[in-house]
């Protein structure tokens, strides 16, 4: 179909080593119907581009300050001068007042150092494919390929389908990283083009699921069953969030669910909660409600793995 079809993309990352087999290039699409409290890509949740600000990239209002003059909403102001190693003296940089900011993104047009950027940008399919093909040599040796992730890729189903088709035409292995939250019809459309689904399971109790992600889980579980029945190859991803979904009860329930799905399930990946995404909340001026949470220890992860192995193997940590 149309090479010109446009996707809302917040990042493309090469040497992506945690998102499927081999060395992969991950295309992260913007917009997600879930809002998990532990999300490590908070900039991908919104369907609209929001303002992302990386303060260490700001070179200071003295040298630049262009954004101050374009902001119509009075949302940008100078900070107190702080020591800058580059200039070897105190420099005032920009501060964003999130109360006033409307995410009009005018400031991102003038910010050369890319301290103020939109949380994503529109890209043509052909440009996305062009970028992916540059990494191709690295896919071939490692059994890697393309991973479409998000946000929720199914929310941009037309673009996702076209991107998958384009990749398959180039004989590139494809993974679709999904929350499973979409209509079955939508998910079903991807079946011919996806080699492996990376399918998130966040909580088996629907009320708890709602509490932590904003939605109930029935549709997600139902889609997983249908996908397994339809022969889609699945790698489940279970983020272990201490105190949220690592109760014995939930571990058993998760194991039971996966154990019953049959040979379509290839692997269960346990992902220990990490705080690496926390800095991204600062960029967006958001607060992370789990910020004081500690990562589970290696020993605890091993213990969970052993428990889950009574239902299903193989299981991989990370």
């Amino acid at each position, binding site marked *: 179909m149309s090479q010109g079809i446009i996707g809302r993309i917040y990042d493309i990352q090469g040497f992506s080593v945690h998102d499927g087999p081999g*060395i992969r290039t991950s295309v992260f699409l913007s917009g997600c119907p879930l809002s998990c409290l532990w999300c490590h890509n908070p900039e991908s949740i919104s369907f609209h581009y929001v303002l992302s600000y990386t303060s260490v990239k700001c070179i200071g209002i003295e040298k630049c300050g262009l954004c101050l003059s374009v902001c119509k909403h009075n949302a940008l102001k100078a900070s107190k001068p702080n020591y800058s190693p580059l200039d070897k003296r105190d420099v005032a940089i920009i501060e964003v007042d999130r109360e006033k900011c409307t995410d009009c993104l005018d400031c991102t047009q003038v910010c050369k150092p890319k301290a103020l950027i939109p949380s994503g940008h529109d890209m043509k399919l052909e440009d996305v494919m062009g970028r992916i093909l540059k990494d191709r040599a690295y896919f071939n040796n490692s059994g890697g390929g393309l991973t479409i992730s998000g946000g929720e890729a199914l929310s941009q189903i037309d673009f996702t389908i076209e991107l998958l088709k384009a990749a398959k035409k180039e004989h590139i292995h494809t993974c679709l990283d999904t929350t499973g939250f979409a209509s079955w019809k939508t998910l079903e459309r991807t079946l011919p083009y996806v080699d492996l689904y990376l399918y998130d399971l966040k909580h088996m109790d629907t009320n708890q699921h709602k509490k932590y992600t904003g939605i109930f889980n029935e549709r997600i579980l139902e889609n997983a069953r249908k996908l397994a029945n339809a022969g889609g190859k699945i790698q489940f991803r279970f983020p272990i969030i201490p105190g949220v979904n690592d109760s014995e009860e939930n571990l058993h329930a998760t194991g039971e669910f996966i154990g019953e799905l049959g040979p379509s399930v290839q692997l269960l990946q346990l992902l220990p909660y990490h705080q690496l995404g926390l800095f991204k909340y600062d960029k967006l001026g958001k607060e992370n409600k789990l910020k004081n949470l500690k990562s589970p220890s290696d020993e605890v992860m091993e213990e969970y793995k052993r428990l889950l192995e009574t239902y299903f193997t193989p299981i*991989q940590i990370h």
Partner: protein
Amino acid sequence: MFKFAAISPRIQVLRDKRGAANKGRTILDGERTKIYTDYYKAHEAEPNILKRAHCLYEWCLNKTILVEDEDVFVGQIGRTYRALNSFVEWDATWLHQASHDNDEGFKTAWQSEDSFAYMSDTDREIFKEASEYWMDRSLSARYLEIIPPVLQSFHGNGCSDFFARKPNLGGIPQGHYSPNFQKVIAQGFGGIQREIREKIDQLQGKIYGNDASKFMFYQAADIVCDAAILFAQRYAQECARQAENHTDPERKAKLLEMSDSLNWIMENPARNTWEALQAVALYQIMLVADGQQHGLSQGRIDQYAGWFAEAELKSGTLTMAELQDYSDAFFLKLNDNLIQVRMSSNDMLSKMYSGKGYSYNTGGHHFTIGGIKKDGTDASNALTRCLLNTTGRMFLADPSVDIRIHKYTPSDVWELAIQSSKACGGVPSFENDELIIPMLVKRGRTLEDARDYCIIGCVEPSGSGNEWSASGGPGSEVFFNLLGPIIMAIHNGVNPLTNFSKGLKTGYLYDCETFEEFKEAFAAQLKYFLDWQITGGNCFELMYADHFPSVVASTTMDGCVESGKDALSGGCKYNSTGLTGCGIGNVADCLIAIKKLCFDDKIVTTKELYDALCADWEGYESLYQAIVFDIPHYGNDIDEVDELAAWVMKLANNHISSATNPRGGNWAFGTFTMTVHVDYGSKTDATPDGRRRGEPLAEAISSRQGFDRNGVIAYLNTVSKLPQSILGNGDQMNLRFSPSCIANKEGVEKLRQLITTYFENGGMEVQFNVVDTQTLYQAQENPDDYRNLIVRIAGFSVYFVEMPKVLQDDFISRTEHTTI
């Protein structure tokens, strides 16, 4: 989770004892200096080649012999362990300064807790006397008398520090070669001596033509053979003496066994693994004493010693655990052989080397393991694996290790190598057989010799025991600042920082009407200054060969005994001289900035850009930002700029590799920078790539620090476009990963695939650090908690907290590759 097995109790004891020796301090030891100086004083008229051989003999005869109960291998360079040698014949300036300081200053510098090394009062007197003798006689003192005056007028050109080392030029032993350890093990000096004496007999009373110099060489080599045999026998005697009254029967038996072996080896072929390794250690120490030890590389130790191990494991006379102990103990032995490098000639480098702590960076030792054999089959064996276990669990910044990789490198060797590199800051680094072997064949080696290559110094591929590679330069300077010719092309042959004005008059930047004109000006300046560096190097080599023939190296190296010529005078089978270009990433960025801004997009005129450079960007903030943020940069897989880098590399390489050296070989071009990119940067004016005056250059073939913004694969794609297969003097590719990238087995496998694919795409070498930026900042704040943190800088690794701050910052500014 992968974990290296703990080291055995006896190695732990050895390690602790070495670490605690001299209260953990390095000793600046005067024994060698005294023996050599006394000999020189008493025999001033003797030809240099005989003098060098006799000095070594005197040293072997008179040096302190030390054997301690924990010792697995014997041999030490000084009177004690952890002693640091000084090479006063090369340069006496700093020792003169240090020993003649007033008492208070001396005590603070050399006898306080913070001393870089400890110097006793006795040694101070030795150095005082010796440095007085050598002040006017050392190589660096004489250099200025000998070199053509025109070379002296090239100080401050900004392209080559060769001309800026006054008065310390020549203070660095040339070294950078791999001696023929194989011959020592397989033939022994007894066998070599028989060969030499036959040659002497043939020449007796029949010296025609130039045979007199051969005759002299053979006489010197004969003395060296005696010295080597004597050296081992003195240790044998000491072992026997200690055995006599030893109370521990086990040690007593061991000492007798060692004594027996030491009486045998050096003269005769080694009979087992221990003897092979011990012979290598003793020969190594003799080479260090002789002085040509800078960049002295052990070569393929798993080959020349490994087959003993294989045979012994098979016959049951050796267990894997014993072999592992040998491997660990051998590392500790070499780690103990310290050298002193450039105390004063290059401030940045001497700071780099002068770490305090258990391991002392020698800038010397380098092992090469793995790869293919001469017959093309996989070369890895039990010793290869033991050595990788050693590097992964000993946390020694030295010796450095390279692993040669080929299509059929076994997967367990791969895994050990990656795990070790992850645990021990980039040791080993990875070299690509498939690229290097054909390159060496193109450069004139036989296929067998090319397959048997090893790595010298930092990353330089060279022959094993058959090549005087001088890959660290001719004993003076190897580094060439590629931004120098850019400055010259901008300022009509003038370096504005020093007012040096002897560059070619190619006009000013603002005289250029097309981009091609500027490129031509740059190319002309580049060739012109490369020629000057080669000229200086060739003049220097001649003098060097006369002053410091290395008979002890020549005695074993292929070609020398056959031809009757010292290695430094062209006796070896193969001969080359190295040169390395710094800042290729900056040059590419400079060229693209000029092209885009002044000619393609016409955002500024060449005059405006010129003015901005003269003002060091002061008052040109928006232009500066346009360059830093809008112009494409090298390192991001953007063809237009990457092609310019490839053009520069080809240009420099073609010019250099066509130049010849006095030994009948060719010069070779490489791109490693060690830490010189920081030093050179501090002496380089503002450049069009948006570099401010004094900022570091990009290191090796890397992009400018932090300018690779598209991730590791884009970065690798960029450097894959460079014609690396022509770089005879090697190249270097540094990567830094966050630990989360390689957390589990899958991560290790993916890293392997990354390296494999990079190599398939034309990469020569890769080395990586697995450490996140946060950890590095913490190490800066609490150095005591991070004493063991090793990072790879260039061809060698160092303890991070022991680096000077400016180098730490440079390391941190290199992009960390991560995926979250």
